[in-house]
């Protein structure tokens, strides 16, 4: 009941936000909130630390950029193409990585993502250091002009809303039950007859597909796909967002993404501009040392204790 009221307030805020706040900033925020939520699916609910999610985010960004700019596909189809590409890449990387656990899983995903990154540096269609610039935003459903930032905002909001619903449904599904059982006690899940690798692989593919959706949408918003999207910094940033907001909570990653993006944006225009990485680093340290459950996790714990 309370969460229903919370969601209604959040929806009302998201619908009216662009009247007050710069819509491009909001769209960036939504894209990264989606990216972090997708990442949380594999880290928070699957218990697997992927250090290569930039490959899916960046890969989808390039494919969508190419599909829209060179092939001239409609916007929706361009986004779907990028998302599907990330899903296929997720399946390939997942099949190799999923048998390993802990640090080995993180290392394999990092290595595979670096391979993808080097591919993007060398491949001609990515535009190398310049990236893919001037990607057309096009129209939504062939009528709504997305060049208009307000229209674009609501388009992104719909994508975010659908993906967010899919993620929370996945967590609260029969599949989600098996996934949390595997995260809690993998050997026991096996001894109950579950082929755990298949479940982990599905979680990984879902996570990478939705991370791709975030990357594709970001390309349309900024009309740009660049090497930054696929760089391992991006993989690290999404870990930070998820941990800061609250691992294994549905809203946590969005909150974490909001904090990081807001800080980056506002600090960058102030006197602390050169110190942004240091500030983020300090926040990370504080988060890991003092409030390990993340903002949302700690808040939930506080409410549980007080009432």
């Amino acid at each position, binding site marked *: 009941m309370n969460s229903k009221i919370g969601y209604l307030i959040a929806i009302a805020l998201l619908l009216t936000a662009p009247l007050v706040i710069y819509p491009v900033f909001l769209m960036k925020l939504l894209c990264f909130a989606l990216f972090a939520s997708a990442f949380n699916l594999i880290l928070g609910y699957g218990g697997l630390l992927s250090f290569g999610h930039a490959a899916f985010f960046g890969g989808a960004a390039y494919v969508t950029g190419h599909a829209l700019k060179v092939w001239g596909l409609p916007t929706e189809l361009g986004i779907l193409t990028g998302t599907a590409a990330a899903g296929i890449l997720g399946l390939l990387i997942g099949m190799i990585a999923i048998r390993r656990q802990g640090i080995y899983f993180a290392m394999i995903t990092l290595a595979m993502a670096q391979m993808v990154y080097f591919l993007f540096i060398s491949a001609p269609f990515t535009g190398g250091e310049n990236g893919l610039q001037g990607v057309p935003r096009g129209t939504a459903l062939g009528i709504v002009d997305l060049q208009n930032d307000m229209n674009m905002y609501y388009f992104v909001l719909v994508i975010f809303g659908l993906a967010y619903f*899919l993620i929370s*449904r*996945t967590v*609260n*599904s*029969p*599949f*989600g*039950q*098996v996934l*949390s*059982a595997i*995260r*809690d*006690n993998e*050997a*026991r*899940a*096996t*001894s*109950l*007859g*579950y*082929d*755990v690798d*298949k*479940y982990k692989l*599905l979680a990984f593919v*879902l996570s990478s597909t939705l991370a791709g959706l975030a990357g594709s949408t970001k390309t349309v918003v900024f009309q740009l796909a660049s090497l930054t999207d696929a760089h391992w910094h991006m993989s690290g940033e999404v870990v930070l967002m998820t941990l800061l907001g609250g691992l294994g909570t549905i809203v946590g990653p969005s909150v974490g993404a909001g904090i990081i993006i807001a800080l980056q944006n506002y600090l960058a225009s102030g006197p602390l501009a050169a110190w942004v990485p240091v500030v983020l680093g300090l926040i990370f340290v504080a988060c890991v040392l003092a409030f390990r459950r993340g903002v949302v996790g700690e808040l939930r714990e506080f409410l549980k204790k007080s009432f």
Partner: protein
Amino acid sequence: MSDKGQYILQTQGLTKEFKGFTAVDDVNLNVKRHQIHALIGPNGAGKTTVFNLLTKFLQPTRGKITFNGRDITSAKSAEIARMGVIRSFQISAVFPHMTARENVRVALQRELGTSFHFWRSVKTLNALNARAEELLTSVGLERFADVVVADMSYGRKRALEIATTLAMEPELMLLDEPTQGMGREDVELITQLIRKVSAGRTILMVEHNLGVVSTLCDTITVLQRGAILTEGDYATVSADPRVKEAYMGKAA
């Protein structure tokens, strides 16, 4: 049943070698249907290793394992579980962040065939709640259905583990030290529970508590340094001087 023969589980020459060390040495185990069969032996005798081999958490170096006359030596762990051989672990094997009801339901939900359905609501699993609660009642946990397992006592976790195992309707239950680390009351409780659930089933258990073994088990196999030392009912085994020696060391 009779057409499957007298033995539910058999091993022939089961051997596991780690680098330069034989943990399980040429073990021929014959577990009779509808019995409670104990595997005992001093620490490091290879009891848990045998369990891990039977459920394929470890790969045997040599030997053959048959279940109901079917060769399962090369089957995978999850496959063996689906055939009806369900094991427990030395430390309580529960899912701590889920409620007791959800723990049992995870074992039940595979039969719905929707375990990969990430688009379906978890509420579709409520159809299994009645059966889950029945199982919780059978181990005396009916009042704890909505309790998150991490907050439950050790004895109750072990009882929940048995309820979850029963949900799989196993033909053969492998219990690895079910009373380990328990106070006397809990031991009594679990002993009764094992006797209760053994009806119509076969149980193979590793157990240190000889009191439990003597009251529960029909057949006892004593392992020492990976090999079978002796086998028989409690009276036979406990009278064997070699068993005393294995446990106590050489008599002066």
